[in-house]
């Protein structure tokens, strides 16, 4: 664990597209019954959306909450596994759309579902060392679900953005501590010209998700770390509903502290945005002084874990942009054929 000094969240934003497909609609096509479905429904990006467009939505909201001049943002890093270009950074597109160009740093990050929190971690370092005044960390994905595969039910779309800076009276939260736990564990991967990732089924459980999430979280709780009692919310990477609750159980964390940040039943797994959107949901409701533990998970594999303390300014800054609930509640249900059309499976481009 690293005790972080001098890094605060100035603004945050979470975006989920309007469209939803129910897991039972997907199950209808493949003959899979309700009992086997890992989530209730998932979000689907519209045909004119992609990681860049969703990242901009989230970033614009983060900017409204932060209330800073976008030209002072020195780094914009987008973490994703479905970025629009294999070569051309998404960060520069986002920067242009929010008026932050020219910036200093803007490479894209990939680390499966933890690319967004990796951006958060590294930008914290840039702030702490004074290399930049403000930084924008984004996790965004329009994850590719292989038809008929188990992950088709959960691979979803969303984006979450955080503007970091030095702590001041406008900061909404403080990053107090951080830990990372990374190994070479090939539980899920995608080769460059393949449309869909491949996963190693049950291997994605104990040796992958649980080992790394528990590993990173323990590093914040053990020794002279934090106690479970002093943390009010636990937000874990949530590829489905079972895993984050099981991780909580393993760690002795009461379920009530996990549920507020658990969105997967309603929106599926938004990959690089996943745990970050849970954090957004919690920031939308937390009170000043409360503490949040965030632990992401990215296949391949690793976990970033943070202790975040909510500050007073959140009360007046929170509603400068729409809360995540308004995106969660604003839904248009689509059928499987429309889903294929939106995902570019019919008109291959």
């Amino acid at each position, binding site marked *: 664990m690293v005790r972080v000094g001098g890094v605060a969240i100035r603004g945050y934003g979470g975006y989920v597209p*309007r469209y939803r497909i129910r897991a039972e609609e997907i199950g209808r096509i493949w003959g899979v019954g309700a009992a086997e479905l890992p989530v209730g429904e998932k979000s689907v990006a519209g045909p004119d959306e992609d990681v*860049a*467009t969703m990242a901009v939505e989230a970033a614009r909201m983060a900017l409204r909450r932060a209330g800073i001049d976008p030209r002072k943002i020195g780094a914009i890093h987008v973490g994703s596994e479905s970025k*629009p270009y294999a070569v051309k950074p998404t960060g520069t597109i986002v920067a*242009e759309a929010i008026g932050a160009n020219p910036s200093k740093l803007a490479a894209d990050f990939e680390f499966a579902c933890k690319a967004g929190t990796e951006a958060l971690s590294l930008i914290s370092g840039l702030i702490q060392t004074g290399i930049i005044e403000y930084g924008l960390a984004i996790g965004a994905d329009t994850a590719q679900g292989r038809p008929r595969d188990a992950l088709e039910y959960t691979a979803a779309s969303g984006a979450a953005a955080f503007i970091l800076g030095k702590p001041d009276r406008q900061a909404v939260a403080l990053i107090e501590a951080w830990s990372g736990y990374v190994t070479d564990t090939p539980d899920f991967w995608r080769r460059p010209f393949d449309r869909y990732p491949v996963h190693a089924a049950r291997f994605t459980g104990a040796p992958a998700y649980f080992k790394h999430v528990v590993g990173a979280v323990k590093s914040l709780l053990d020794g002279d770390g934090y106690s479970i009692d002093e943390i009010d919310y636990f937000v874990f990477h949530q590829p489905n509903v079972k895993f984050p609750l099981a991780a909580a159980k393993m760690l002795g964390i009461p379920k009530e502290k996990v549920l507020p940040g658990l969105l997967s039943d309603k929106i599926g797994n938004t990959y690089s945005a996943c745990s970050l959107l849970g954090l957004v949901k919690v920031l939308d409701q937390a009170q000043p002084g409360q503490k949040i533990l965030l632990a992401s998970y990215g296949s391949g594999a690793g976990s970033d874990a943070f202790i975040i303390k909510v500050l007073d300014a959140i009360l007046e800054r929170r509603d400068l942009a729409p809360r995540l609930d*308004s995106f969660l509640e604003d839904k248009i249900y689509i059928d499987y054929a429309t889903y294929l059309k939106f995902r570019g499976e019919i008109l291959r*481009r």
Partner: protein
Amino acid sequence: MRVPSYWRNMPFIYRLSGWRCEHCGAFHPVKPLLCRRCRSRRFSAVELPRTGRLRAYTILRSPPKEFKDLAPYAIGLIELDDGTRVLGQLTDFRSEELRNGVRVEAVFRRIRVNGEEGLIEYGYKFRPVAREASPP
């Protein structure tokens, strides 16, 4: 658009950013030498408001070739909160939300994709405001 032209126009198409004539108030997407309306030569940089009202709309069913895959799509005439009139594609509408007077907001979307290899062109579209937050 060709790459250099697209790049030159990013401020307008990404952020509705442009130039207002200081004499007559006419909005120009690209910094002009001369006001298109009154021929005056002084301009202020401006970012148009991102919200407004839908003044009129239509749905295209036989679009031009660049937009074939998108058909049918809607084009709207929007009156932004400062009175500026702007045309834009409409997105994410439920059919009952597509009516005159509806409040809309500008969002950043893919406008067109040039095949498998070419540039992805981004720009603004408008969608119904489902949620209003307090102004910044």
